[in-house]
């Protein structure tokens, strides 16, 4: 097993009587990309800023690259890179000038050309930062975090405000970091981003980690079911075997397409079953279609999305009263 890049046990941070972080445990292996998900005010940024050495903690053990960020020196800062949620480089400097001065802060920086190429800003190297688009400025942010040749990168909502194309480009770039062997702690609001980029996901709510693991682990933890749907004209509800009929029913709500916590729902033309037992359900459906002498071309089987899982987890935490402050 690889040695941990980040090891956190029982982390607490209080502001007066408010407990922003209430006992977080976190483990990020070397070379891993971990997505840190959670609603606003859940303690995400506070936790990350403690790991970056910007904030003190009230209690708990924290080790980042083998050192305590609260006391780590400048040699430790040589080994980390940080992309803040909001930051704005000097608008009157050119792109290459900005990366060059940043490189001067580190003892063993990456070559400037290589960094610009890595983030796709080679053509803009002579352009003033103030004239870059929002997406290009964010790429410059990433360039500044990478220029020191970090072992560990903190990415705080790196694609917020991006259009879909820019987001895809950023993903490709972050994916590329994996090949460089960089460990990444990625904070994001976007479920698809976490699913696409991360090896593992940790969900935080009300200062506590409420779920962790791969997207599949999380779906299991949230008892999320697979969604099977088809056109009711191909296999009508009344023709279903008895054991399936109980899990699917006609809904009066047009346009309803099934949601977590609602075991079944039906649009006027579509029937939906949410189930853990995918193969038996599909086999029974195919059998019914065969018996009726019909094709079931409209059959759709959808595994739970991370977004469904996340909303379900946060909803559970909310229901448990953990979000009440």
């Amino acid at each position, binding site marked *: 097993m690889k040695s941990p890049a980040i090891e956190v046990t029982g982390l607490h941070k209080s502001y007066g009587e408010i407990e922003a972080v209430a006992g977080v445990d976190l483990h990020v292996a070397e070379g891993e990309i971990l997505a840190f998900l959670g609603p606003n005010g859940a303690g995400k940024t506070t936790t990350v800023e403690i790991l970056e050495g910007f904030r003190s903690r009230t209690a708990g053990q924290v080790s980042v690259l083998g050192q305590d960020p609260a006391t780590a020196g400048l040699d430790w800062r040589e080994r980390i890179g940080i992309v*803040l949620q909001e*930051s704005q480089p*000097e608008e*009157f*400097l050119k792109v290459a000038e900005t990366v060059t001065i*940043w490189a001067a*802060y580190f003892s063993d920086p990456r070559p400037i050309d290589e960094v610009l190429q890595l983030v796709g800003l080679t053509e803009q190297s002579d352009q003033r930062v103030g004239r870059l688009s929002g997406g290009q400025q964010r790429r410059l942010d990433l360039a*500044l975090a990478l220029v020191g040749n970090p072992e560990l990168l903190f990415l705080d909502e790196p694609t917020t405000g991006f259009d879909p194309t820019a987001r895809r480009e950023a993903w490709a770039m972050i994916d590329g970091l994996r090949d460089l062997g960089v460990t990444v702690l990625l904070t994001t609001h976007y479920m698809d981003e976490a699913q696409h980029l991360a090896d593992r996901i940790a969900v935080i709510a009300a200062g506590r980690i409420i779920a962790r693991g791969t997207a599949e682990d999380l779906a299991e933890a949230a008892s999320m079911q697979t969604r099977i749907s088809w056109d009711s004209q191909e296999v009508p509800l009344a023709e279903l075997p008895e054991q399936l009929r109980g899990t699917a029913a006609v809904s009066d709500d047009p346009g309803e397409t099934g949601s977590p916590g609602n075991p079944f729902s039906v649009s006027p033309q579509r029937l939906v079953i949410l189930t853990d037992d995918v193969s038996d359900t599909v086999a029974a459906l195919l059998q019914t279609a065969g018996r009726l002498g019909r094709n079931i071309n409209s059959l759709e089987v959808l595994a739970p999305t991370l977004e469904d899982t996340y909303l379900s987890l946060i909803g559970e935490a909310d229901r448990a009263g953990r979000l009440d402050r």
Partner: protein
Amino acid sequence: MSSRGLRQLAAQTRVDFTLLWRNPLASFFTVVLPLIFLFVLTALFGNELVTPVGPRLASRFVPGIIALSVVQASFVNLAVVTVFRRETSILKRVRGTPIRPWVFMGGLVATSYAVIALMAVLMAVIGWAVYDVDLLWEAVPGLIVTLVIGGAVFCALGLAFTNVVPNETSGPPFLNLVVLPLYFVSDVYVPASDDTPRAITLIGDIFPIRHLAVALQRGFDPLTDDSLWPVTNWLVMAAWGVAGALVVTRWFRWTPRD
């Protein structure tokens, strides 16, 4: 200082100096505005001989405008740039890198000194070439000490002042609110005379700008009968500098105000 620290300081100074020149507002307020003031003052009040044997009236404007240049280049520029960097999270990001904080800040201080030297020479040359103002060479060592102390003191005060500026847009108005009235009571535009109300000179005496301006007058006005080493003015300025440095050590913020 390590050679790496020196290299970093040189690189940071180059960047800060470049930024000052590329930013139209910053270069206007630090370089162009003092020049305009010098031209306007001499246009308004003329440049007659103060006594039949001299000096010219402009010999009283030149040191005042050099004092203004020192304050603009150190106190005002340093505070505006630092508040901007704090509020746009540049300072926070820099704190996340291995550069020593004082090396990073040293770039701005060195830039202030470069501008102070440039403006002092420029004013002295314009004074001599255009307004017949002679530099008193025997006072030059004292002038240099004054500029060195002045630069350090107003840089420290500029950094200290960032604590009271809430955001980047309020930087320039906050600073002007402080320096503009003080310029009037600090011998910057027009030197105090026997007719100047005592209250005005008293207020001026409390704050460091007048001490800077008065110390600089030694270099250009032969009628000032004080010594060439204005130690009292230096001490008052230094006291303000120490107070500023203490505020910086205790309360300086690297992160934006939430």
